[in-house]
């Protein structure tokens, strides 16, 4: 259901009602209505992670007046919104800029893969003991795990899914295995793509599947026994078995993962590549009830031949995938209920290096945020003349975390406990990106 939002997340109809209440002098009605609105929030999150770090000076924060060794080869083009320009290689995105906002003054202090990835995917800068080589590194829980823990599953589909692989920082850490992502290990753009282990091997005919399930019920003397009740972990396996059966049998789950059911034309529009089809699958899954999908897309680490790679592959793929994702969500009336974040772990050095590349750059980059009841079509903050660092309104990963949680209806001050009893807050300080809410 698509409803335009006005005045602080209320719909036009709510505003009319509010107005009426005010006229009739019912001051408390406002408060009640707002409270009810808080509760009804039932958003989903699609987090598109541009692994390696997108060059935002070449895409969303162009500086055509900067010296040649900064501004790069690309030209800006006009967009649907007056005064907003993006890169010439993003013509499709230029037509959808009213559906999201750009935070151009994003900044953090780290320019290392691994640590910065973790920072952007969890809102926590990693502390001592962080091992970026571990997958999952389970240092702090990813947003999807927090969502899974706080909001739970919606129907028979898992609350949190990673596609086409799991980024090492997308684990559930101290929130435990129950909130680890369901990982779709496979490229949805591959011809033979299917979700692993979701259905029995093809050699097993349908009547045998029924047989097996019936037999399993018969042979398991521990099922629902006093022993199972007295043993938490046995009970947990039973719970997960229930979830697995749900997944295997539910038509929503089947539909969610069956990307081949999408019209060819739409699949083409998203682009027949990992990013495009992952975004399309993300939309399908959200439609079926998944609360958080993390799309991990590589490789944006353009140390060499930045412009060649961006122009030849990355930007055209991005253009198709992201523009179609926003248009598709909007067409289906899902944009209001689906929060979309598109970002890398950092930006890239504004100064071009000797290999015509750009290196890691945490101090200033652009994050794209849209849908989910945020104010779309905004540009928040700006960078200095060479896009090196924020000129105003700086925001960082902690602020992103607070904004995502708040928008999703999760109190950013919620406290979790690690297995050794250490209390950890959902967010690590941070403030709301107020221009967007």
């Amino acid at each position, binding site marked *: 259901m698509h409803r335009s939002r006005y005045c602080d997340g209320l719909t036009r109809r709510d505003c009319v009602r509010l107005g009426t209440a005010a006229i009739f002098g019912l001051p408390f009605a406002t408060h009640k209505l707002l409270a009810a609105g808080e509760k009804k929030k039932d958003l989903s999150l699609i987090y598109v992670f541009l692994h390696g770090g997108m060059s935002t000076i070449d895409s969303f924060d162009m500086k055509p007046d900067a010296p040649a060794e900064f501004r790069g080869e690309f030209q800006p083009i006009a967009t649907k919104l007056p005064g907003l320009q993006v890169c010439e290689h993003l013509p499709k995105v230029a037509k959808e800029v009213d559906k999201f906002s750009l935070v151009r003054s994003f900044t953090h202090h780290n320019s290392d893969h691994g640590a910065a990835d973790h920072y952007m995917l969890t809102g926590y800068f990693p*502390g001592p*003991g962080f*091992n970026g*080589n*571990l997958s999952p590194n389970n240092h702090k829980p990813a947003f999807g795990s927090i969502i899974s823990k706080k909001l739970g599953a919606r129907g028979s589909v*898992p609350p949190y899914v990673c596609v086409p692989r799991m980024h090492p920082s997308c684990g559930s850490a101290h929130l*435990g*295995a*129950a909130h*680890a992502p*369901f*990982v779709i290990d496979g490229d949805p753009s591959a011809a033979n793509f299917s979700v*692993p*282990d*979701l*259905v*029995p*091997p093809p*050699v*097993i005919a349908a009547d*045998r599947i029924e*047989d*097996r399930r019936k*037999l*399993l019920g*018969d*042979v*398991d*003397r*521990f*099922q629902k026994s*006093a*022993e*199972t*009740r*007295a*043993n938490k*972990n*046995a009970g*947990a*396996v*039973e719970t*997960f*078995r229930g*979830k*697995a059966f749900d*997944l*295997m049998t539910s038509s929503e789950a089947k539909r969610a993962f069956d990307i081949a059911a999408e019209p060819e034309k739409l699949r083409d529009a998203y682009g027949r590549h990992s990013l495009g089809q992952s975004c399309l699958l993300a939309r399908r899954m959200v439609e079926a009830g998944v609360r958080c999908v993390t799309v991990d897309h590589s490789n944006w680490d353009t140390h060499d031949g930045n412009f060649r790679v961006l122009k030849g592959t990355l930007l055209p793929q991005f253009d198709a995938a992201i523009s179609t994702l926003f248009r598709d969500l909007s067409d289906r009336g899902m944009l209001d209920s689906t929060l979309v974040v598109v970002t890398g772990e950092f930006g890239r050095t504004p100064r071009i290096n000797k290999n015509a590349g750009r290196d890691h750059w945490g101090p200033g980059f652009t994050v794209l945020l849209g849908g989910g009841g945020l104010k779309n079509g905004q540009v928040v903050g700006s960078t200095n003349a060479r896009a090196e660092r924020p000129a105003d309104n700086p925001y960082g990963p902690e602020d992103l975390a607070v904004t995502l949680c708040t928008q999703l209806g999760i109190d950013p*001050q919620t*406290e979790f406990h690690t*297995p*050794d*009893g*250490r*209390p*950890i*807050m959902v967010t*690590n*300080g941070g403030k709301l990106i107020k221009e967007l809410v």
Partner: protein
Amino acid sequence: MARYVLTLAMLTHSVQLMAAADAFHFENQISPLLARYNCNSSGCHGKAEGQGGFKLSVFGFDPVADYASIVKEARGRRVMASAAEESLFLRKATGRTPHGGGTRIKGESNDYRTLRDWIAAGMPVGDPNAPRVSAIRVEPPEKVMANRATLPVRAFAQFTDGRETEVTEHAKYQTNHETLAAVSVEGVITTGDAPGEVAVMASYLGNVAVCRVMIPQVGKNAGRQLPQFNFIDEWVDRKLAKLNIVASEVCDDATFFRRVHLDLVGLLPKPDEVRAFLSDTAKDKRAKAIDRLIQRPEFADLMALRWADLLRVNRQVLGPERAYAYFRWVRESFAKNKPFDEFARELVTAEGPVSETPPANFFKVAIKPGDAASTLSQVFLGIRIACAECHHHPSDRWTQADYAGMLAFFAPVTSRGSKDADAILSVGDPVTRHPRSGSPVYAHALGVEEPTVNPAGDRRVVLASWMTEPSNPYFARNFANRIWANLLGRGIVEPVDDVRATNPPSNPDLLDALAKFAAQKKYDTRELVRLICNSRAYQSSSVPNASNEKDEQNFSRVAFRRPSAEVLLDMIGQATGVGDRFAGLPPGTRAVQVWDSETKQPFLKLFGRPSRTSACECERNAEPSTAQVLNLMNSPDLQWKLSHVSGNVAKWQGSGHDAEKICEEIYLTVFSRRPTKAERENAVQHLKARSDRRAAIEDLTWALLNSLEFSFNH
């Protein structure tokens, strides 16, 4: 703590206020309040970065810094002596000014008045020579409580001048088992519905004390006397009697036989072995089975896997050759039944070229002295001191000086030489300094008084002999507790590597008795395993009775345990008759024998194999997931094993046996027991009803493999 730093010299504006402010003492009076209301907790202003620009030391371990934060930082805008009530510090704490942490302190409480009056008095630091808190105690120290009952505890602080004051209002309280008994901010304990034992901790200025609460099972259970097989059962039963709990019956032979196989050798018993055991009428057949199993090489494989995890045999860090040599040393130690104290000494003091001294590889993994110190404390003493690297341990007595003292043993350890002749040596006489005061800290073990000089020679030798001497309060208990936990699925201290006053053993007498036994037997691993496996506690059924269904702490029944990922994969290999191949290892290698935790194997990864980056038992993830269940049900790999031409299904199909016999073979192979009458009828009916016998056998086997009975040790 921090007594050496609170000096007047650092406080520029307090001199003229001293006279009026004698009554106040920041460290003794104000600092505890910051802890009590969680202002300085690690989730809030105690975080490394602080919160909202205001940073306190976590748990108040650094009063000097805290004083500066409150009084001087931000140009002193947080406190106003002239209008104490209007101080930002109080406005925030009481929620009068919007505060991210909400209202922490009620406006008219005693604590509020203390803070207000302290500010009004000009924020005095207090007399640097004032008596300090040396210990605290709680009243009562232990109490038997009914379900849903309440008990207010009182806390008293003892000062260095011998004075004692009640600090009930100022101490902070915490329970170690929220569902059994909760505790309020005021120190009122409220019990729940389940029987058990709880430790409620009170902490005040870095000192901790515990009130132990026992909640017996309601109702009459007396009368039922279960057999006692050895001294373990006496201690278990004594505790159960106090709690009014009756243990479960002794389990049947088949259950015991499967359980003891999985625990001691990580394998299912073979069908013929099961048959022979079931028909054996000897009274001591269980004891004999235990004796046979602990002598098998697979026993050493299983022990090696566990200790290789804890001692971080990590190929990624060490490279394949060294990691393998290190692993071989661990395995050989258990194969030869090396006394465990000797094992610990060899590791702690390992020295020389790593090619000749495999345990020296440990210092190649734990390169930093602090890492070595905290890993070895955790593994051999069961004590986590890593917290004290940055702050006073929140729920034990360990200070940063204690941490530095342990670290100092390893400060001289270094690896020198070229790449091919790497050696671990203890050289030089480096001075370890206290991270805050900068004063030297000399090598001293936990709880031992600090000497005024570092030991001469290899300092680690001193540590190793302290660890393993008979009077050491931790080593034997840790050893006994870890072996116990491996076999019973839960430590007497749980988690096994978190020994502290505030996490007491569920059965201290039992733990002491086991530790004494271990030391008497010269840390013979097999002797201890033998003793435990022969106890009734180990041989209990997993079927609960009305009195013990809620008990999880007292070994009144055997808990379901998930086999490790490696054992489960081997079990599937045995059940299907088709094992796995592992890259770089000869055919027939079992998953348990894979020494490299990085070997690519999706099943092991999915089922929680650890990556060996820490010494925590918790790294091995035993939590189930939907993906695991899906894998067992649908993975092509399992189907491949079921339909393999030389697998068990093919064998059963080609055996020419009738449905009855096939059914029995399947049950004996997968469940290590005979089917019940009902199970047999059901299975036979299934086998006969299907025209495709092969598919019917596959499907029945599949069902058994996916059952809870198969995937747990029970």
